[in-house]
């Protein structure tokens, strides 16, 4: 049994890894749109660039970008190997006379800003070289943005107060040291700042300052190949719970902690309900196979199977949860419990839960019980034709015992296998049900986050709901082993 469990757990590793990869790919899709958002936000890049209070919305955009980990290259980070020459080439390729499209130049420029600390030293070398005077403007801007260090939520615990103050002071200084420059169509950059020389010297001195050396050093460039990448960062943030939800201003996992139990309860209850209805129904229609009753049940269930749950849920809401002229609604239309349920006695609490949860559960489970009962019927019919049932009948075992003790026990294996598949549908469907009945669950949260483009929260809640799903599948596997003696005997 332990060996079997272990084997099932091992099989889940590639699945979890694959799901994380899919999640990461989706996250990168969003990163592309953020780059576009950044380009849209700084539309003044052709013509004279204003560097003042208004131009620095960029900093907060980049900050948000860094919080999601989207500033890092996807799989391999080679920025540790940037040299002065490559940075010069990079800067030249963003010049108006580079001969490429504006959109491409913009993209290149933003990429350089997102390189981060690895570009600080090469950029400082560019600044200290007076032969490259034309590039000092864009290089200083890139340097200011690359050296900018955002203080994230978890930094408050990790770093000392003195260190945080130092970083914040540096950020403020960097903001004042950008050399204004001109770029006009078809021309290279030209510096347009009377304090250019002082700012340049100050920037070079800031990078050379031993106090900042630790932040900008490039000694870890080999390990950074793998560890300073989007995927690694994503995994690290997931593992340490560092995902930050921008829309809720809270850690993503602490938001989820308030929501996931509701969804779990709802799903477990509806699986239970589905079984409670499907098993008697399936046995009944299998025993009366091909009677009129069976035909009617089959057709009704078939139609029920095609009925979309959002339609059914909305109908319930319309007919049972809306107060009419004749009186109060039959069922509440919001949440899983009354607002004052804290003062309820336990039985009253349970009744209240049932009263609130009945319609959502029904909406969620009818599709499951339809398919469960159909499969059960088909499988039972197969069992009835099997030799062991014929032998049992010949021995005079009564019909009830044949169905319950022999045939159903074998069919329940199929049911368990199916249930784990249905779980996946359930986790998708619960979203719609939670939305219709305004239940504060994981699906509701996911939907809300998706509507607000809050990628970290979406990722975290997807991972949690997939995790719950995998646990469900594992439980189904264990049940399978409990019911099936063959597995128990094979794995000792």
């Amino acid at each position, binding site marked *: 049994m332990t060996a079997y469990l272990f084997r099932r757990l091992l099989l889940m590793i590639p699945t979890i890894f694959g*799901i994380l990869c899919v999640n990461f790919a*989706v996250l990168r*899709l969003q990163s592309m749109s953020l780059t576009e958002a950044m380009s849209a936000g700084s539309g003044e890049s052709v013509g004279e660039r204003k560097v003042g209070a208004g131009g620095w919305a960029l900093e907060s955009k980049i900050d948000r970008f860094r919080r999601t980990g989207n500033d890092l290259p996807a799989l391999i980070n080679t920025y540790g190997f940037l040299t002065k020459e490559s940075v010069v080439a990079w800067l030249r390729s963003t010049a108006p006379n580079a001969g490429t499209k504006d959109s491409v130049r913009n993209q290149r420029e933003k990429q350089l800003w997102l390189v981060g600390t690895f570009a600080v030293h090469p950029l400082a070398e560019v600044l200290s070289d007076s032969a490259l005077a034309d590039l000092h403007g864009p290089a200083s801007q890139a340097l200011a943005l690359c050296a900018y260090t955002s203080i994230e939520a978890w930094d408050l615990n990790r770093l000392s107060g003195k260190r945080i103050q130092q970083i914040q002071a540096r950020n403020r200084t960097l903001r004042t040291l950008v050399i204004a420059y001109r770029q006009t169509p078809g021309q290279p950059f030209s510096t347009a700042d009377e304090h250019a020389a002082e700012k340049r010297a100050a920037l070079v001195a800031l990078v050379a300052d031993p106090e900042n050396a630790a932040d900008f050093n490039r000694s870890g460039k080999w390990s950074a190949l793998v560890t300073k990448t989007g995927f690694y960062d994503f995994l690290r943030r997931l593992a340490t719970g560092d995902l930050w939800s921008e829309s809720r201003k809270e850690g993503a996992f602490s938001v989820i902690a308030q929501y996931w139990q509701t969804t779990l309860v709802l799903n477990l209850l509806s699986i239970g309900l589905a079984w409670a209805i499907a098993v008697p129904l399936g046995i009944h229609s299998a025993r009366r196979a091909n009677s009129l009753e069976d035909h009617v049940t089959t057709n009704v269930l078939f139609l029920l199977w*095609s009925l*979309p749950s959002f*339609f059914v849920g909305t109908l319930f809401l319309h007919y049972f949860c809306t107060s009419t002229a004749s009186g109060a609604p039959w069922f509440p239309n919001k949440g899983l419990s009354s607002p004052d349920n804290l003062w309820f006695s336990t039985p009253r609490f349970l009744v209240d839960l049932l009263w609130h949860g009945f319609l959502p559960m029904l909406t969620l489970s009818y599709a499951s019980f339809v398919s469960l009962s159909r499969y059960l019927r088909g499988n039972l019919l197969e069992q009835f034709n099997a030799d062991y049932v014929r032998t049992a009948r010949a021995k005079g075992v009564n019909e009830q015992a044949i169905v319950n003790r022999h045939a159903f026990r074998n069919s329940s294996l199929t049911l368990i296998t199916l249930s784990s598949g249905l779980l996946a*549908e359930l986790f998708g469907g619960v979203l*719609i049900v939670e939305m219709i009945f305004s239940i504060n669950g994981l699906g509701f949260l996911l939907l809300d986050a998706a509507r607000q483009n809050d990628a970290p929260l*979406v990722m975290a809640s997807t991972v949690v709901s997939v995790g719950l799903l995998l646990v469900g599948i594992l439980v189904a596997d264990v049940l399978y082993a409990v019911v099936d003696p063959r597995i128990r005997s094979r794995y000792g």
Partner: protein
Amino acid sequence: MGEHQGMWAKAWRRAGVRWGTGLVVAFVLLGVYSPFIANELALVWWDAQGLSFPVVGDLLNRWSYPKYYDIYFNAAAVLLPFLLIGSWLLRRRWSLVRRMVAGALVVVVAGTVCLLPIIPPSSAVSSASTTSVSGDWQAIWRYRRQSQALITEDHAKAMTIFAPVPFRAMTPIASQILKSPGSVDQTSGRRFWLGTDSAGKDVAAQMLAGARISLTVGLVATGLSLLIGTLLGALSGYLGGWVDLMIQRLVEIMMCFPTFILILVVVAMTGRDIFVIMVVIGLTGWAGTARLVRGEFLAQSVRDYVAAGQALGLGSLRIMFRHILPNALTPLLITATFGIAGAVGSESALSFVGLGDPTVASWGMLLEQGRQNIAYAHLIWLPGMAVFVLVSALNLIGNGLREAADAASE
């Protein structure tokens, strides 16, 4: 091909398949001819300047039909009578399947021609009747000025015939919000047969437009998922070994993932565009097909004809797709039917949760309005029943086909 026709004939004997096919054909016809059923322009306009057919002239106008798929439907609307005549003339020479495929190809080619830039920049037509300013090559499908006169001018001067639903799906009338079915627009005297929604858009017109959306999403998404599923399943089943192992892990991951959540997340992250939605539904729905095709290929690849092909030195691809695949067509057809039903449901559900394309009318979006304005039953029943009927018609066909195939294999 013969075997499949035999199976189709067997399936056709089932009442469910006949009903299902009838309903699907009805939906297709409603979708294809929706510009003629719901349009604020006149079908026929006869005044001193002569006889004109504004709706027909508007069929390739980008203002009125901003989405690509609309053009294919419009091409189908124009070509369908001719295709039917052609099909009747060829009835003894070509099989039904061949005629249907040829007809579909004609529609696709015609629609694509209308979408491609084929009119040279200096054409006299382009300067006269379009608002375009660029000197590029133009498609037949482009922005044209709509003659407002045909909508608002006094009808008494002309003989006119209007469409039964005199509204367009996406044109809101601000003063006519949440009207019940059958109410009349006091300013123009036109009737909202199925009422209006919360933005004042006519529900009947939106229902017809929704039929187009649902059918398009169903076809495109299922086509894509069949393509991917068949390819991966075939490779996995025929080649075996580590390719099989990798693809099976991939299939397992896709099976494990709550597909609807994945679709939702991708759509939310990339953009609420109807084409993104179609592609994402297609990209996430191939796991079942891949598993099925793999099973078929495993079963077929030990058969003698495959060994004969290998002995003759045919390439793997040729054996896979010319020899084995035709034997797996029946289960593929069955999956496709269920797949279309699933895709239609997914698209509606996506619009229902507020992540549909806001620029197109879809059933899910109407139902969402019904949820927000819960007292208005027409906004719930109409779109809900439309989804239900289309999905169950497709499921009926799929079920009938499956039962026929099971009966044939026994």
